[in-house]
């Protein structure tokens, strides 16, 4: 019998490279920005020139080093209490990245579980989960976290809880819909004909097909979590006052915006850059991992 031709083998490393090429500049910029913030968050204690809560009232509201009156020891100037803005930004990045990572992970785990179950079993289970999602999505996240803060007290836990409680629906909806689509595919019924149970089909056949989607959603969700954390610390129901957060820095800078605009400008810049970074990363990953484009 004649053997049929095989298209050229594709090794793993070149597959990665091809994926990166498909992701284009979006992916590169996203990876760069996110990597930058993650590195700073990880290395904040090493990189920061000052203790973020160390006050130096004699050198309060110093402008950045390159402006007139700036000092080299405070590269981005100081706030109204004479704390080093650069150091505070770095430590705030820790809070932001930590919240984003933990909240997005928990939201993803819960949302994926609900989405898979609803998508797989359909029927009344799907009805219950879908209605739950509908009701949930009608609830404003900030309001919810204010309620949570009132109930379990302000702090990182309630910030994370608020994000998770609201944003699991984002994962659940998409995963549910995609599970249903995948189950219609021939490979899913072929798997059933092999005698695999529903749990095995979900875990071994469907889930690997959802990975690109989940990775993409996860990146976008981290950006959203950062924004929510900023909003919550802006309204003062995030972490305790002495812990640096971008939102908290914006509040402090707002009061002296005419005298020392940089105090507010830098944290805003960080928020914008990090959220753009996560969104670009998500966008780029979607292009890089999309199984349709990969085929």
């Amino acid at each position, binding site marked *: *019998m*004649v*053997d*049929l*031709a*095989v*298209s*050229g*083998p*594709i090794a793993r490393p070149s597959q990665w490279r091809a994926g990166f090429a498909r992701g284009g500049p979006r992916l590169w910029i996203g990876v760069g920005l996110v990597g930058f913030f993650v590195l700073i968050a990880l290395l904040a204690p090493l990189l920061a020139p000052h203790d973020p809560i160390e006050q130096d009232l004699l050198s309060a509201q110093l402008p950045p080093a390159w402006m007139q009156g700036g000092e080299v020891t405070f590269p981005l100037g100081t706030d109204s209490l004479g704390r080093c803005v650069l150091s505070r930004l770095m430590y705030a990045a820790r809070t932001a990245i930590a919240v984003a990572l933990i909240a997005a992970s928990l939201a993803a785990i819960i949302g994926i579980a609900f989405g898979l179950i609803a998508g797989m079993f*359909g029927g009344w289970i799907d009805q219950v989960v879908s209605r739950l999602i509908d009701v949930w999505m009608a609830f404003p996240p900030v309001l919810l976290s204010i309620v949570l803060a009132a109930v379990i007290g302000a702090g990182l836990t309630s910030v994370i809880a608020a994000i998770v409680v609201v944003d699991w629906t984002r994962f659940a909806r998409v995963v549910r819909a995609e599970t249903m689509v995948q189950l219609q*595919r*021939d*490979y899913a*019924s*072929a*798997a*059933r*004909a*092999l*005698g*695999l*149970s529903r749990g*095995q089909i979900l875990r*071994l*056949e469907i889930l*690997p*097909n959802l*990975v690109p989607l989940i990775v993409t959603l996860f990146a976008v969700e981290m950006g959203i979590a950062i924004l929510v954390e900023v909003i919550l610390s802006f309204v003062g129901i995030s972490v305790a006052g002495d812990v640096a957060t971008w939102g908290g820095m914006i509040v402090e800078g707002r009061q002296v915006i005419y005298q020392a605009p940089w105090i507010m400008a830098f944290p805003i810049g960080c928020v914008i850059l990090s959220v753009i970074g996560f969104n670009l990363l998500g966008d780029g990953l979607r292009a890089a991992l999309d*199984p349709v484009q*990969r*085929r």
Partner: protein
Amino acid sequence: MTAVLAVQDLHVAIGPRGKAANVLRGASLEVQAGEVRGLVGESGAGKSMLGRAVLGLLPANAVVQSGTIQFEGRDLLAMPEPERRSLLGRRIALIPQDPMTSLNPVKRVGAQISIMLRHHLALSKREALERATELLTEVAIREPRRVLDLYPHEISGGMRQRVLIAMAFACDPSLVIADEPTTALDVTVQRQVLQLVERLRQRHGAAILFVTHDLGVVAKICRTMTVLHAGRVLEDGETADVLVKPRHPYTRALLAATPRADRPAEALRPVPPALIESLWSEAHRLDRLAVAGPA
């Protein structure tokens, strides 16, 4: 001689309650051990539904209203779900219709074969890989080791169909349901696939229910055949008898509709609705005769 598969008076309806369409209305057929039986009929005759009912893969909105499906003397419809699942893939296997979509796009060929081997035969990872290599060699795939490492989109359609055939025969099933396995392939590959199925059947001693609308394929490999029309069995017997002396006008129409090289093209004419109507009443008459006869 005991039948491997005995379908008795199977009624299946599909669609919402009240507006359900009866896709099978009292279909019966038997497949003896080691027999290759063709199941033919036009699109919508219910032949695929019959195959799917045996595998328990009916669409979610389809209901088995009455009838029995006995596999090696045990009723599949009355069997608890886990017990039936343990038969699927091991004792009853499927060769799916479309090789392009019936393999999981994001998993390597080797991983897909070993999932089922490990599931049914409790092999270790290494043993499963060994066995998968043997299986691919058996279906005349050169360099099986390399193919095991490829993704489905990296191999040709004919090759994918061979992988699926290898998987179907992997656990030495006693019944293989081939759901139009050659329809999606081009003619040159079709022949090879048919030869392959026949060779594996002889080696593994399985019975095959070959679902197809291609009478040429039936003539080539099936010793017996069943003609299905609108959910009923119209004709059943040795392939040679049915094809040479069709008892039923519908079979004659089906034969006349087969494109042949030795006949001018205008002989290929569609069956007009009026004729179908008259065939139907004829069919009812014959049905009554058939029922009245032995009783």
